């Protein structure tokens, strides 16, 4: 009798425990910290599209938008970790130190930091996308489609991510058209439609007939549409904003990664990782190609896309020289991730200096 009581007591405890664990596992809560407003239709907007994919997969999510990259970030992170979130995605480079600091205080909460490189604690992972692969495709298109041989490029801030994009774009454009010039204008903003439009207008007035951008708003493609030149969408498919101007867009697709990682927490299989995914893994997506592009170019782009995805082609394949003519990558070699991550010099063919 006594034994039976104990046994049933223990088994019910076990049952209760399993039930609770199951309940917890089902109720994984994910939080997202955004640098901008979800209404920017750019960087933050695309992260939020990813968050919605996590919701659609049956998990609860919360987000905090417009969090400055300062001590404020720490406060927000601590609050999210305290309020029962199991995994927290911090989606801007400047959250790197706050993320690691708060991760130390909450070893049971998983942290995922976008575009950073510090993983100081076992519960911190980092992830980023190889957007430069997309820019290799844009460069190929731009070099082929330009008639004036002047390509305009509206840049945001002189950081490796942006420099890498300019280089990858220019290398690809030079490959198909050695006569092109890439003119770069720094807007010193990620996000100011008026300024971005003015920068694009200046480039167009100076003869650029294809405009690339590394800022977030749709103002540039609209300006290109008005002026009758070509452009490329940034972060999301911008075709509907400028149907004639936009040849294709490079889309940021975070959804699959987010769903994957949240599921991993639910299954208990989450582990520390450093992810840098490109076209091959679907984190960088090339939108539909515009019909104004000649069919042989479309075929070429499709093949390039497949080769970048399979790894047969690398955006930075030697020989690559810097502006002064020094060899950066030797013939037959490709730039390693370390070099890409810290890239702060222009390749040969880019005009002007990097602002210091």
């Amino acid at each position, binding site marked *: 009798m006594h034994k039976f009581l104990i046994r049933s007591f223990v088994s019910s405890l076990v049952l209760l425990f399993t039930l609770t664990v199951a309940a917890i596992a089902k109720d994984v809560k994910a939080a997202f910290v955004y640098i901008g407003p979800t209404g920017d239709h*750019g960087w933050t907007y695309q992260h939020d599209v990813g968050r919605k994919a996590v919701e659609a997969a049956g998990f609860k999510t919360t987000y905090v938008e417009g969090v400055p990259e300062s001590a404020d970030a720490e406060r927000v992170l601590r609050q999210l970790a305290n309020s029962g979130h199991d995994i927290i995605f911090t989606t801007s480079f400047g959250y790197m130190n706050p993320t690691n600091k708060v991760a130390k205080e909450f070893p049971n909460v998983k942290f995922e930091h976008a575009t950073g490189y510090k993983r100081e604690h076992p519960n911190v992972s980092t992830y980023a996308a190889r957007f430069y692969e997309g820019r290799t495709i844009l460069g190929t298109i731009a070099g082929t489609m330009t008639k004036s041989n002047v390509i305009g490029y509206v840049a945001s801030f002189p950081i490796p991510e942006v420099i890498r994009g300019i280089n990858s774009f220019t290398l690809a454009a030079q490959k198909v058209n050695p006569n092109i010039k890439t003119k*770069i*204008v720094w807007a010193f903003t990620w*996000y100011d439609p*008026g300024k971005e439009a003015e920068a694009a207008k200046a*480039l167009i*007035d100076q003869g650029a007939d294809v405009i690339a951008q590394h800022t977030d708003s*749709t103002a540039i493609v609209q300006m290109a549409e008005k002026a009758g030149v070509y452009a490329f969408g940034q972060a999301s498919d911008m075709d509907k904003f400028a149907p004639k101007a936009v040849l294709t867009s490079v889309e940021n697709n975070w959804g699959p990664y987010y769903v994957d990682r949240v599921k991993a927490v639910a299954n208990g299989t989450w582990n520390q990782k450093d992810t840098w995914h490109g076209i091959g893994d679907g984190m960088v997506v090339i939108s539909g190609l515009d019909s104004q592009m000649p069919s042989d170019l479309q075929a070429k782009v499709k093949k390039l896309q497949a080769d970048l995805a399979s790894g047969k082609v690398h955006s930075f394949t030697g020989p690559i020289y810097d502006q002064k003519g020094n060899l950066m990558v030797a013939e037959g070699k490709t730039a390693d991730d370390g070099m890409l991550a810290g890239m702060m010099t222009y390749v040969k063919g880019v005009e002007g*200096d990097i602002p210091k």
Partner: protein
Amino acid sequence: MIIDINFIGLIIASIMASAVPLILASCGELITERSGVLNLGVEGMMIIGAISGFALMTVTGSLIIAVFGAMLAGVLISSIFAFLTQTLITNHVATGLALTIFGIGISAMIGKNFVGIPGKEFPVLFEGLKDTIPLLGPILFGHSIVFYFAFALPFITSYFLKKTKIGLIVRAVGDSPESASNQGINVKLVRYACILYGGAMSGLAGAYLSMIYTPQWIENMTGGRGWIALALVVFSTWNPIKILIGAMIFGGLTIIQFHMQAIGVRIPVQFLTALPYIVTIIVLVVISRDSRKIRLSTPSSLGKSFHKDN
């Protein structure tokens, strides 16, 4: 690089287009300030105008409804400011700042459903005449009606303040509300009207951004232009013609520095980016350095609350 006469015309036309929102908002705020009210909510009223214009355009499909709706939205939000500062006698500075924060917040909330929708094309006038005259063609022709209105506004404002009875009443209220009140002028009524007018112009400036200049809605799309408009009013020493000059210099340097970058001028980009702010202030300070004139044109009761019984 191509320097021909039409290229210069194109640059001047883009400079003028970028000055439009500043001129509209500044001239509106100038009237408000001339009546003695300091409304720091320009940025908030502008962004409300931007989302209202864009939303109405998307929902109703009518550009006319959208433009007037944006002005009406500016009037409505500035009426909150008017009620607080004039009827409840709150502090102008604090209320104006609150209005900006409120405007940015509420525009983001309304705007949630309008992100990622392309705007409509806004009709331009005299497009066909653009190529008829070298240099002047692109400057004079092929712009929206709001553009022409903005460039007429400083002259209308100047005439209104100097030559019309109502203009003189506005200035009297701003200079000495007590005397104006003793003359039988309803100070509160005048100030209410001036605040609402300022709201309408800020709303129009916002609508210009979201409907004509960069036809789209994204959060915070005014990008601080409301604050620049406010600064222009002060640095122009409450003179509408100098507002026009200041707005052109500011817009001009923003655009010219992009051209200098594209040409490859070896000047640090950060310096070029700061240039519009620095030069606009210097020029306006220099052209307005006559202290007697400043004293004459500064509304002496600016920012001070007025109670009828004191």
